[in-house]
């Protein structure tokens, strides 16, 4: 029993260690590139590329897509896309080192089924996707890098993102505990 418990306990690094290293990474990123980290931009590039491939005329007319489409190169040829690829491989690397890479599985609270969890995750993704476009960035781009560079918008996003989470947490208690 005890052995199994140990086996199921993931070996995560100390959260403060992760935080300090992440902070240093933000500094290094700003030092090298002059801007912070980001993640949702890659998906945006993917969306734009897909739309451009499916119906080029419509996409070019759309005032949102057209901001990111240029004739010179594909929108996928973008800093954030490469960075996001890096995030994926970095996660893989860490997962291999700490032994967390396993076959596909769903993680959920014992009170809900896997199916529920997957539907909710999809819904959450949709909302996050819409919100990140209004917010000019997601939690890493706007909230983390934005706040670290003292941007007003970054701080607003950070406070409201977590604030909303706390305000509505009671509604979705079943999903998590």
């Amino acid at each position, binding site marked *: 029993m005890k052995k199994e418990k140990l086996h199921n*306990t*993931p*070996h*995560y*690094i*100390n*959260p*403060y*260690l992760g935080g*300090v*290293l992440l902070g*240093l990474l933000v500094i290094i990123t700003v030092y090298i590139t002059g801007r912070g980290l980001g993640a949702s931009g890659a998906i945006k590039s993917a969306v734009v590329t897909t739309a451009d491939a499916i119906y080029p005329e419509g996409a070019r007319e759309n005032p949102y897509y057209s901001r990111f489409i240029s004739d010179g190169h594909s929108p996928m040829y973008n800093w954030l896309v490469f960075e996001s690829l890096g995030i994926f491989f970095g996660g893989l690397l860490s997962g291999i080192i700490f032994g967390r890479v396993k076959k596909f599985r769903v993680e959920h609270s014992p009170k809900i089924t896997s199916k529920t969890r997957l539907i909710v995750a999809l819904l959450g993704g949709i909302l996050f996707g819409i919100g990140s476009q209004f917010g000019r960035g997601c939690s890493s781009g706007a909230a983390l890098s934005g706040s670290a560079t003292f941007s007003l918008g970054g701080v607003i996003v950070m406070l409201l993102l977590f604030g909303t989470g706390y305000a509505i947490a009671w509604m979705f208690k079943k999903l998590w505990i």
Partner: protein
Amino acid sequence: MHVHDLNPKKTLVVVILFVMIIIAGFFTLKQPRFKYKLSLEQSLKMLNDEEACFHPWQLADVLSKVNSNVVLVDLRDNFTYSRGHIPGAENISAYDLTDDKYFDHLKELYSKGVTVVLYGKDRLQANGPWMWFRQLGFDNIKVLLGGYDYYKEHKADLSKSKEDKSYILGKPDYNYSEMAKPVNSSASVTKKNKKKTPVIRRKKRTTTASGGC
């Protein structure tokens, strides 16, 4: 149920490394060789300081050794200096001012409270270096009005220049609007318009400023 490593030892190591980088930063921070002592506002105010200028008639006392607390510094190059200079003047070419040898010498004069008078060919040549030294806090350094050219012309009787104001610059020699008056009447209309334009434009500019971009 502690899923995270609770021991912050590694964190401590990383944070201490971070602090060491910052301390290293403080050590590598170069103390600049020259530093402005006067702020821009003070520098601007200094320009109106009558005390910061040295008039040609004051030279008479220096040359007759009545006033021995003054060192004259010739900023022109060695060749020009050798062809003629104010008696007793030291030659520090403007290009050599920051050399340790000369700069330390000027610092020494400053600490001794000796007045240093800079001069060049004309006032303009010495004016920039003079402003520079003043901004660095050398309030013993003055500029010779009129420069060497004026001295050379009037060296026979310097004290006379007390009445002569021609070496004091910054005054119009002509009545510009009178001089630049248009020649015929048809152009005088143009002239009027021309006069108005700057006023209008200034306003235009300020309105765009408040409008923002």
